[in-house]
């Protein structure tokens, strides 16, 4: 074994140990939930690996490799598990790049009774232990756009957003809707600007990008998602929500997702019906966060790509 591979394995194992000790000290329970299940992510912008269960004593059925352990972990929370975390593989189809691998290690944890701000403090404390202490710049989504793009993401016209997209990327912007423009601008202009800021907590995303987060009003009366993202040196590392707990709202978002999938010509995904049942039983108010652990290893080793920090990346299967 080469020194390089050996030091990678040691570093990775060390980071995993620190993470497990961190949660053990804080009384958060490690859990393992299925990576393969009959419910998939309906998110129109995520593609699942879909497979088929055949034979044995079970009925043949469609199964999804999980894009995140969220649904199963929420079912545990609804059953009264208390604070839990999981370190496990997640799968997203079609995602291969320097910063993406179709299989990756996710660290996900939930804090019943905690606000999003309390979770943010805990997330920063963990990252300080893993990467060394540093200061954090807190920016709202709106502030970051005003600084880096010079546009207010809530007030700017669609034409102005499209013009900014063309200017920074040369894209054919005619077909881009508001959220697509915001996604393009954040990835092409805002995130690169975060490089010089080190660690950035970005919060108050537009309500249209709430996914499974609650929505509230910001100081200017805009509907914003109770969600934050942590960036380290321009790399998107973690995504957190004040979790949606209303069963009917969750069911409505699943339906809306599948309607949008139909419009995009994508296949329909069977949602996790048992999650809806669990929410009906009652999910405690909680905040939750998912952190890309392989990206964290990348940052710890100052690597330029995931390929450098994975034992066998998709480029070397």
């Amino acid at each position: 074994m080469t020194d390089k591979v050996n030091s990678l394995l040691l570093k990775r194992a060390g980071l995993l140990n620190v993470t497990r000790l961190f949660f053990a000290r804080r009384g958060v329970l490690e859990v393992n939930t299925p990576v393969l299940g009959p419910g998939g992510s309906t998110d129109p912008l995520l593609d699942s690996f879909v497979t088929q269960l055949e034979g044995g004593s079970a009925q043949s059925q469609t199964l999804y490799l999980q894009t995140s352990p969220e649904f199963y972990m929420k079912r545990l929370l609804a059953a009264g598990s208390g604070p839990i975390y999981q370190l496990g593989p997640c799968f997203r189809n079609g995602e291969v790049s320097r910063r993406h691998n179709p299989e990756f290690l996710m660290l996900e944890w939930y804090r019943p009774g905690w606000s999003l701000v309390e979770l943010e403090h805990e997330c920063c404390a963990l990252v300080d232990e893993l990467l060394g202490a540093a200061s954090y710049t807190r920016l709202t989504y709106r502030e970051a756009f005003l600084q880096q793009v010079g546009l207010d993401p809530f007030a700017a016209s669609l034409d102005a957003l499209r013009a900014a997209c063309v200017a920074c990327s040369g894209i054919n912007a005619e077909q881009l809707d508001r959220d697509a423009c915001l996604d393009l601008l954040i990835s092409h202009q805002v995130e690169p600007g975060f490089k010089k800021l080190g660690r950035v907590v970005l919060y108050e995303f537009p309500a249209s990008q709430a996914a499974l987060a609650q929505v509230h009003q910001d100081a200017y009366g805009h509907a914003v998602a109770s969600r934050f993202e942590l960036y380290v040196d321009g790399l998107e590392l973690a995504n957190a929500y004040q979790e949606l707990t209303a069963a009917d709202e969750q069911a409505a978002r699943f339906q809306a997702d599948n309607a949008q999938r139909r419009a995009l010509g994508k296949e329909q995904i069977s949602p996790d019906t048992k999650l809806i049942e669990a929410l009906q039983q009652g999910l405690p108010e909680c905040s939750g966060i998912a952190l890309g652990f392989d990206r964290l290893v990348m940052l710890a080793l100052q690597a330029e790509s995931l390929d450098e920090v994975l034992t066998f990346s998709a480029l070397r299967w």
Partner: protein
Amino acid sequence: MANFATNEFKGGLKFMLEGDPCSMMDIEHIKPGKGQAFTRVKYRNLMTGRVGEKTFKSGDSVEGADVMDIDMEYLYTDGEFWHFMKTDGSFEQVGADARALGETSKWLKEQEVYMVTLYNGAPISVTPPNFIVLPVTETDPGVKGDTAQGGSKPATLPTGAVVRVPLFVNEGDLLKIDTRTGEYVSRA
């Protein structure tokens, strides 16, 4: 020509952009964790040589460019065109103009094989082999006792190109040149 969607993009793919054939150099998949995917392409415009970047929405497509790289042997020039012949036994010939030939004029040699890039059947660029052997037509006399170390001097090749060579090189010597850097490698 066929269309290529973003999931078919790869390095070397030739495509049309604003009326010019371009070649993809680098492709980057960009996707926020909760957001839309984009494909950022670094490309070279094959007509101008200019390098640019452009982002595509996932699922967008580009029109393929009828561009082919073909090995061809250099025959002769009539002063206006430089004539190359296919090496596949078809004896088919094309004439490249000075613009298509570009810097390769410095490394032209009869019977040598070059990569000729054809766009809609017409040559738009000519790429020399990485190494080429050419004789020295003119240089200052060699200095006795000099070795590979020490100084250098200019030497002129039959194409008019001038390369820096060690002092021991004489007129008539055959030189191996790296065409990518234009530097002398060794005596051949």
